[in-house]
C-alpha cells in the first residue's frame, strides 16, 4: 500500500480509526455527550476530506474506487451519520445508553457504507457489506432493556447471515464462470455466448437475492417491519437511508457494468420492483404503528429506485440516485422528528401522535412536510425524484412500472396522511410536552430545508449526480 493510496483512503481511515480510538477512550460513557460530539466531528471531517482531498489514484487494491462517485457517497453517508449522531444525544441519555460505543459503532457503519458505495470488485462488496451489517446487528439491539429491540436484532441477524451466505456463494459462482472478482470482468461472463453463462446467471441470481434482502424488496422484506419497530429510532433512520442507500449504490455499480441486462435478469428485477410497490403499499395501508408503516413505505420506495435502475441507461441511473439522495434526506428527517418526540417511550402508535400539532407545532409541521415528501407531493424533493424516475421509466419503455408506481403513490398518500390527521385534527389526550433539544431542532430544520430546496431547485444536485453516475 502506497502513500497516495493511503491519502485516497483518508476519509474512510478517519472513520474507522476514529471509531477505534473512540471505543477505547469513551468507556463507561452513559449519559455523556462528548463522545457524540467527537463522533460527529470525525464524521464531518471525513465528509470534508472526501469532498476536498484530491485523489491521485483511481483504485485501491483493485477493490475500491476512489473516484467522484465513491467520494460523493462517502461524504453523503458520513453526513448522514453525523446527523444521526447529533440528533440522538437526548435519546441516549434518557435511556441511559452508552454514547461512546454508540458513536463508535455508527462510525464503523459509516465506514462500511462508504466502502460499499465505492466497491468495484465482488470481494470488496462482500467485505464492505458485512462490515456495516455487523455494526447494525449491534446497533439494532442497542437498547438491551427493550425486548422488542433484542427481537429485532435477532431478526436482522439470522436472515442477514443467510443473505451473507447467498452473497458469498453467488460471488463464488460468478468467479468460477469468469475467473475474476473485478467488476467489469466478473460480469462479463453474463453476456450471451460467454462460456459458462448459466453458472454466471445462477451466481447473479444469488447475488440479487442477497441484495434484495438488504434492500427489503418483496419477497425478501419480512424482517423489515419488525426491525424498524424494535430498533432505536435514530438507528432506524440510518438503517433506512444509509444502509439501503449504500446497497443501492453497489447495485448501481454492478448494473452499470453490464451494457444490457442479461435476458432473465431484467424480468426478475422488474418483478421484484412491481411486487415491492404493490405489496409494500397494501401492507402499509393496514398499519397502525408508524414505524412499521415507514418500514413498508421503504419497501415501496426501494421499488421506485429499482425502477430507475431498470431503465438500464444513464438517465435512469441518475434518476435512481437522485431519488435515493432525496429519500435519504427525508427519511433521516422523519426519524429525527420521531427521535425528538421520544420520551420514555417512542411514539409508535398512531394514537401517540394525537394533537401533537398543538403542543409541538414546529416539529409537527416538519413531520407533515417530510411525510408529504415521502408521498411525492410538490414542492418537495420527493416529487422531483418521482418525476425523474417516472420520466426515465417512460422513456426507457417501462410504462407498466410507471403506472403501477403512480397508483402506488396515490394509495400511499392515504397512509402518509394518517399521522398528519392525528397530529392536526384530533384533540390531544394530555398536555404533556416533550421538550426538544436544540441539536434535534437543528437536524430537523436541516433535513426540512434540504427537502424543500431540492424540491424547488433540484438543478444543481441533478447535474452533480448526472456527472458522477457511471
Amino acid at each position, binding site marked *: 500500500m502506497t502513500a497516495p493510496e493511503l491519502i485516497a483512503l483518508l476519509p474512510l481511515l478517519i472513520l474507522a480509526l476514529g471509531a477505534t480510538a473512540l471505543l*477505547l477512550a469513551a468507556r463507561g460513557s452513559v449519559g455523556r455527550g462528548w463522545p457524540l460530539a467527537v463522533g460527529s466531528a470525525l464524521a464531518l471531517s471525513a465528509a470534508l476530506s472526501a469532498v476536498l482531498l484530491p485523489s491521485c489514484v483511481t483504485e485501491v487494491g483493485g477493490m475500491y474506487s476512489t473516484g467522484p462517485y465513491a467520494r460523493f457517497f462517502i461524504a453523503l453517508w458520513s453526513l448522514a451519520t453525523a446527523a444521526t449522531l447529533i440528533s440522538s444525544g437526548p435519546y441516549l441519555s434518557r435511556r441511559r445508553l452508552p454514547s461512546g460505543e454508540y458513536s463508535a459503532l455508527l462510525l464503523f457503519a459509516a465506514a462500511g457504507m462508504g466502502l460499499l458505495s465505492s466497491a468495484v470488485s465482488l470481494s470488496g462488496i462482500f467485505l464492505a457489506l458485512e462490515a456495516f451489517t455487523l455494526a447494525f446487528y449491534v446497533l439494532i439491539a442497542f437498547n438491551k432493556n427493550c425486548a422488542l429491540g433484542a427481537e429485532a436484532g435477532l431478526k436482522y441477524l439470522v436472515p442477514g447471515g443467510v443473505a451473507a451466505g447467498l452473497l458469498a456463494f453467488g460471488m463464488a459462482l460468478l468467479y468460477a464462470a469468469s475467473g475474476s472478482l473485478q467488476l467489469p470482468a466478473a460480469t462479463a461472463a453474463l453476456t450471451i455466448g460467454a462460456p459458462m453463462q448459466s453458472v454466471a446467471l445462477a451466481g447473479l441470481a444469488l447475488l440479487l437475492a442477497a441484495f434484495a434482502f438488504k434492500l427489503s424488496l418483496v419477497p425478501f422484506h419480512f424482517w423489515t417491519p419488525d426491525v424498524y419497530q424494535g430498533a432505536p429510532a435514530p438507528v432506524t433512520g440510518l438503517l433506512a437511508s444509509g444502509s439501503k442507500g449504500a446497497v443501492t449504490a453497489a447495485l448501481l455499480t454492478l448494473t452499470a457494468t453490464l451494457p444490457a441486462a442479461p435476458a432473465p435478469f431484467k424480468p426478475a428485477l422488474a418483478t421484484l420492483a412491481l411486487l415491492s410497490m404493490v405489496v409494500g403499499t397494501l401492507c402499509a395501508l393496514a398499519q397502525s404503528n408508524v414505524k412499521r408503516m415507514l418500514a413498508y413505505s421503504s419497501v415501496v420506495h426501494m421499488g421506485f429506485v429499482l425502477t430507475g435502475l431498470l431503465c438500464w441507461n444513464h438517465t435512469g441511473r441518475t434518476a435512481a440516485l437522485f431519488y435515493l439522495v432525496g429519500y435519504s434526506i427525508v427519511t433521516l428527517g422523519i426519524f429525527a422528528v420521531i427521535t425528538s418526540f421520544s420520551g420514555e417511550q417512542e411514539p409508535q402508535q398512531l394514537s401517540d401522535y394525537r394533537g401533537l400539532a398543538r403542543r409541538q407545532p414546529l416539529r409537527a409541521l416538519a413531520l407533515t412536510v417530510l411525510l408529504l415528501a415521502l408521498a411525492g407531493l410538490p414542492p418537495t424533493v420527493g416529487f422531483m425524484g418521482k418525476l425523474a424516475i417516472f420520466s426515465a421509466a417512460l422513456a426507457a419503455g417501462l410504462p407498466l412500472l410507471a403506472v403501477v408506481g403512480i397508483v402506488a403513490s396515490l394509495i400511499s398518500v392515504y397512509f402518509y396522511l394518517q399521522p398528519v390527521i392525528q397530529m392536526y385534527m384530533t384533540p390531544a389526550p394530555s398536555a404533556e410536552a416533550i421538550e426538544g433539544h436544540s441539536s434535534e431542532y437543528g437536524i430537523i430544520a436541516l433535513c426540512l430545508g434540504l427537502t424543500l430546496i431540492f424540491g424547488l431547485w433540484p438543478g444543481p444536485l441533478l447535474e452533480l449526480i448526472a456527472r458522477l453516475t457511471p
Partner: protein
Amino acid sequence: MPLEALSISTAGAFGSELMPPAESLLSLGLYVAMAVGLIAFLLIACRLIGQKTHSKFKDQPYESGIDPTGPAQPGRPVPFYLVAIFFIVFDVEVVFISTWAVAYDLLGWSGFLQILFFIVILFLGLVYLWAEGALDWSPSRQRHSATKEGR
C-alpha cells in the same frame, strides 16, 4: 470404457480444464457408493438381527457405569460462551497472520506494516475487552460491569 471417457473429456468445448477427468469421477462415485452402502448395511443388519428387548436399565443413557443424574441440558455459565467466542475471534486471525508469514520476504516492508496494523488493531480490541471486564470470571466484577457491556 476408456474410449468413452476420452470422448467426454475432449468433447467439452469450453471449460474443459475445469472438468476433472472421468476416471477420477468414477472412482469418487464408487467410493461414495461403498461408504453409503456400508453404513446402510450396518444399520439394516443391526435392525434385523439385533435384540429388541426394552427394560428400565437398558433404556438408560450410558454414563460410564455411573447412574445418570440431573437434567440433560444443564445451564452453563455465560462467561464460558464469551471466552469461547473471543477464542474463535482471535484464533481465526491466525489464518491471516500465517498467510503473511509464509510470504513475508516477498511482501517486504509494505506487507510488514500492513500485518503490523492488523495486529495492532486486534490488540486494541483485546485491550477494549480487557478494560470492559469481559475476561473477568469473578462474579462480583461480572455484576459490576453488566451495565456497561455484554450486548
